[in-house]
């Protein structure tokens, strides 16, 4: 089975993340990495490929540094990478990203892929909408947020867990599937994988290579725009209740004031 995994290069969630002058995510002053939620999609693809035959292709849309996200996936064991790199993409919103991804996935798979895997959400934008949009663009069924996955008889079956219930979902292949961080334990690259990754093919495509008009993407065409932002206020010191025999009452009053009880 030939699998395409869409991954995103994101600012390290442990670093101080902020915005650039044009109110887009600052990617230059913060270390970036493969979105940790995408590691689960890569791992699932590798497991499927190892269980049968087939190839895992990793696709990313992003700035120069996004090559690092591809490299990490190749080190984990993916077979080849595609990096869509074009200055016009800067500032694209989710609909535009899904447009670019759709064309890239089609081209990477030589028509229609058998399975497209994605993470639950990116760790920077955390919108979770791109898998659904991509499925729409590709005209494929979507099953999102799976915490288990099985492929058999030309179908993909999986479980989606929510607070109230667990659903079992099924779709004919080809399909677009997003997976949660419950589905597996992503492997670390091995040193051999690191050395092997250097010899794996990575293609870099522009919008023109994909036949996408630059006017359809980028900050100017985005449906939404960040007008302004305010930094999260620093955490304030909590209230200390001194127990003078009435600690329980004071605690209850505090919780009542916060409308927690």
């Amino acid at each position: 089975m030939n699998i395409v995994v869409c991954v995103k290069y994101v600012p390290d969630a442990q670093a101080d993340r902020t915005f650039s002058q044009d109110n887009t995510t600052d990617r230059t002053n913060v270390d970036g990495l493969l979105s940790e939620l995408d590691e689960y999609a890569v791992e699932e693809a590798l497991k499927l490929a190892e269980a049968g035959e087939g190839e895992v292709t990793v696709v990313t849309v992003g700035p120069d540094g996004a090559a690092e996200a591809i490299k990490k996936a190749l080190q984990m064991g993916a077979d080849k990478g595609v990096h869509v790199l074009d200055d016009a993409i800067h500032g694209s919103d989710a609909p535009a990203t899904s447009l670019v991804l759709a064309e890239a996935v089609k081209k990477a798979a030589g028509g229609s892929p058998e399975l497209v895997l994605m993470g639950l959400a990116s760790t920077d934008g955390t919108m979770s909408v791109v898998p659904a949009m991509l499925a729409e663009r590709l005209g494929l069924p979507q099953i999102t947020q799976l915490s288990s996955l099985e492929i058999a008889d030309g179908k993909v079956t999986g479980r989606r867990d929510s607070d109230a219930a667990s659903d079992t979902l099924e779709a004919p292949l080809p399909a677009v599937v997003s997976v949660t961080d419950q589905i597996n334990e992503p492997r670390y690259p091995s040193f051999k994988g690191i050395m092997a990754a250097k010899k794996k093919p990575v293609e870099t495509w522009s919008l023109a290579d994909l036949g996408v008009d630059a006017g359809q993407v980028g900050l100017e065409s985005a449906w939404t725009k960040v007008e302004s932002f305010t930094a999260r206020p620093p955490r304030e010191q909590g209230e200390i209740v001194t127990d003078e025999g009435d600690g329980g009452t004071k605690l209850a009053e505090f919780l009542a004031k916060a409308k927690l009880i």
Partner: protein
Amino acid sequence: MPVERVLPTTDAADLIELTREIARRELAPRVEQAEASATPPREVFGTLGRAGLLSLPYPEEYGGGGQPYEVYLQVVEELAAAWMSVAVGVSVHSLTVFPVDKFGSDSQRKVLLPDMLGGEFLGAYCLSEREAGSDIASMRTRATVADDGSATISGTKSWISHAGKADYYTSFLRTDDTGGKGISCFVVPADAPGLSFGSPERKMGLDGDPVAEVHYEKVPVSADRMIGERGQGMSIALAALDAGRLGIAAAATGLAQSAVELAASYAKERVQFGRAIADNQGLAFLLADMDAQTAAARATYLHAARLKDAGRPFSKEAAIAKLIATDAAMKVTTDAVQVLGGAGYTKDFPAERFMREAKVTQIFEGTNQIQRLVISRHLLRQVGNGKGSNA
């Protein structure tokens, strides 16, 4: 604060990145609890093994990483900065492979190395005995060799890391009553009949590295498990220790590095007399000395490693690296406790654990007194008897 490193290849640079990622995601979250409860981190060794970090300095054809010591040791240092017990375990495992790789026959290497380097196996190194520590030539655990070359082992080894947890025991045993010339090296599988283990030693630190006695009661080993020639054991053990000392030097450097970083960041935050204590030159200079000693430790082990990688003699430099790096670790971790003051003396901060962990590095793999013996012997052999001649 990542240590700036000059690495020979981009593969090595990526390897350091991988090591840091594993240290951050797998080691750092586990170390406090595992050390406090003396739980050996066997599953962590599995992760390291699958990532290829347990076999770095050994040949690729047998599953190793084919990396020079210069690179392997910097990986050990990075691991130690996150978890000393794990770094010591990695160094010990490497030590157990060394005799087979260096002195084993082609068929022994072909049979034994793939498992040893495969990432799932962990080895133990059985050299010391209760009455034979620095004086290894006085060891008494005996392998009685039959005419067909097979042997039967009886006796007890002490202070053995991974005892009872290892998959094989690289053992140095008395085969003849001829002192240091009567010792031979064997690889004993963990499931050999007659092998049993004492209860874990109650140590000052490194609680994640369980150490116990290994008892051999008429343990049979086949002839093909003897590594090198009969009677070659002492020189094999000493050669292995030259390399092993570099592992300990690198680990001690990583420990010192963590202590410096902890002390410096604490000193910047801790306010007394209306300002951060780091703003007092008396304390800032203490931090500077800690940093300088750590950098010196790194430089000495890297110099010895580069000599080894170049195929040149490095015994003296390995002893110097072990002496300098472990003394530095002791001094730097002790000073870290001082910088943290009362907080440093509590178990709420890792400074006191670092200090306890540092102590043993001055003792194992050759006490620092033995290192001085090695260094002085080399030095006095190197300089001539002539007046000031340096030839």
